[in-house]
């Protein structure tokens, strides 16, 4: 009898929250669908509550429209250990990236203590994961324009809105590879770090001082890229970065056969100035990489939800390769 009542109550609870797709634990969260900002923020709280020894949620700033900007910290202790940084969703329309970020967060909590590679990494380093790097843009992709890319900041002197957060960093800012037109999708902004979404990360990185790998995730094109985007000259560590990229891509492809190309930004995709990993590399973060996830144009930004988990799974293998290399090559 008691069992029946319990299951009735459970069912009622489920129905009550069903319309809000409100998961009560990260085990019932649906990783194979796209979520709203609210749902992702709820997920972060659930995950941190379920794994208080491993996961904590930090607020590194507030967006232009006042939304909190959160970073998940995965740490097994120590004091300001060397760290890996991963961000997803800096371009809000690239939905498979935020969705993959959510999956990575869960994966880390599942594999620590189970997978030798990840366990070794987390026993020595911290991982910072910013899942929704552009929350205003992300909210806008849900409410008004699914294909919005930039931030939502107002530009005085123009009726156009938003700055491309991947052209706003202080690396080759103002050079060819970004637009000075506020209406353009690659508008660099009036000055470097004008966007609070970018400045928040810059401040965090500079304050931390011990980040050893920085990985910024985009879609689409199926590429793994290293600096530079703003100039043709190769980074001093080009050979090593190329080797790491090659290994990471091999690991990725091994899972589902997804083909990736790799190389520097400027030779592989296009000239782009003011980009994230050019700045982080110039700060001395040697292992600076950008991913462009699935696909190669069939669906583009509107990647079917059925591809979220396979994309996250294969990308994770590449991330592990980069993280393990970072662990084994301290500098």
């Amino acid at each position, binding site marked *: 009898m008691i069992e029946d009542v319990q299951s009735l109550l459970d069912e009622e609870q489920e129905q009550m929250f069903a319309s809000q797709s409100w998961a009560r634990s990260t085990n019932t969260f649906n990783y194979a*669908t*796209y979520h709203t900002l609210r749902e992702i923020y709820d997920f972060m709280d659930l995950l941190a509550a379920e794994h208080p020894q491993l996961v904590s949620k930090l607020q590194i700033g507030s967006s232009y429209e006042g939304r909190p900007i959160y970073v998940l910290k995965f740490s097994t202790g120590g004091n300001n250990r060397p760290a890996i940084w991963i961000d997803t969703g800096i371009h809000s329309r690239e939905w498979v990236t935020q969705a993959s970020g959510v999956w990575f967060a869960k994966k880390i909590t599942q594999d620590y203590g189970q997978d030798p590679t990840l366990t070794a990494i987390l026993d020595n380093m911290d991982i910072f994961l910013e899942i929704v790097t552009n929350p205003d843009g992300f909210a806008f992709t*849900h409410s008004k324009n699914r294909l919005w*890319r930039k931030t939502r900041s107002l530009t005085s002197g123009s*009726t156009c*809105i938003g700055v491309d957060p991947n052209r706003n960093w202080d690396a080759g800012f103002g050079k060819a590879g970004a637009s000075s037109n506020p*209406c353009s999708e690659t508008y660099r902004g009036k000055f470097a770090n004008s966007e609070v979404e970018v400045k928040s990360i810059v401040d965090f990185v500079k304050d931390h001082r011990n980040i050893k790998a920085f990985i910024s995730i985009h879609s689409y094109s199926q590429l793994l890229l290293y600096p530079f985007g703003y100039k043709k000259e190769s980074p001093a560590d080009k050979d090593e970065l190329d080797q790491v990229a090659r290994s990471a891509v091999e690991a990725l492809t091994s899972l589902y056969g997804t083909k990736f190309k790799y190389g520097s930004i400027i030779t592989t995709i*296009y000239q782009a100035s003011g980009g994230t990993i050019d700045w982080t590399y110039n700060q001395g973060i040697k292992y600076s990489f950008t991913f462009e996830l699935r696909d190669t*144009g069939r669906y583009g930004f*509107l990647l079917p939800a059925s591809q979220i988990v396979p994309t996250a799974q294969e990308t994770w293998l590449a991330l592990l390769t980069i993280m393990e290399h970072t662990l084994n090559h301290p500098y």
Partner: protein
Amino acid sequence: MQLRRQPLPAPRPGDPYPAAPLLALLLLLALQGAAAAPAGSGDPEDSGWRQDAELPRGLLSQAARAALHFFNFRASSPSALRVLAEVKEGRAWINQKKEYKVDLAFTTELYNPEEGKERLGKCSARVFFRNEKPRPAINITCTRLIEKKTRQEEDYRLYKYMKQLQNLLDVVSIPDSHGHIDPSLRPIWDLAFLGSSYVMWEKTTQFLHYYMAQLSVKQWKTNEDAIDFDYTVLLHEFSTQEMIPCHIHLVWYPGKPLKVKYHCQELQTPEEASGTEEGSAVAPTELSNF
């Protein structure tokens, strides 16, 4: 007619690609006499063409994309659409007007691959980029991926299906925000992709290339023999990352050449920086092949 393979010539300095397969390719093109070739297209060495050994980044991929859009449009077959698999080899020549002539070979996949069946087609093409002006001239031949009879039957099956489709005006976007296309609407997407191929062919230059992102139906008429389809599409231009809205009107009947009329909002130039939220200056150009 048999093609006799020429002995391998020594590679020229700075020539990264083996020349022999291309020689066979060029002979094949010359014999085929495919789509009209523009003036100055004869021997690669005449008309002020000099070989560009450096091959600007992405030029071969650009050429492959332009060629495939043209091929898909010309085939006018929504059941036989192809996408680029891999560029295999290529060479380019440039002239004083900064126009490019590109010879290349590449592989293709079906746009709608069947479960488990991965078919790779081979194409060879000659593409003329007219220094960022639209309408690159294309010569292209591809190996057959689908039996002609099968393709015709499949097109006709699609046609009959589409003839009885109704109530499409409620369909606001394909795919939806989650990338989902209802299987019953998949043929609409394919037909729209066919029409967009014409537009994307014309607009592809050595720097700009496009993907079809999302469409919405404006009008769907099947009372006449042909399918009369009016829709708006967002084309994603990759190098600028812009979303270009285009209004496309196509008329399709299986086995007949596709008819397309279109009008796109043009890409912003800095001088035209006006302000709308979606941010593109309106400089409509109406183009068609009617």
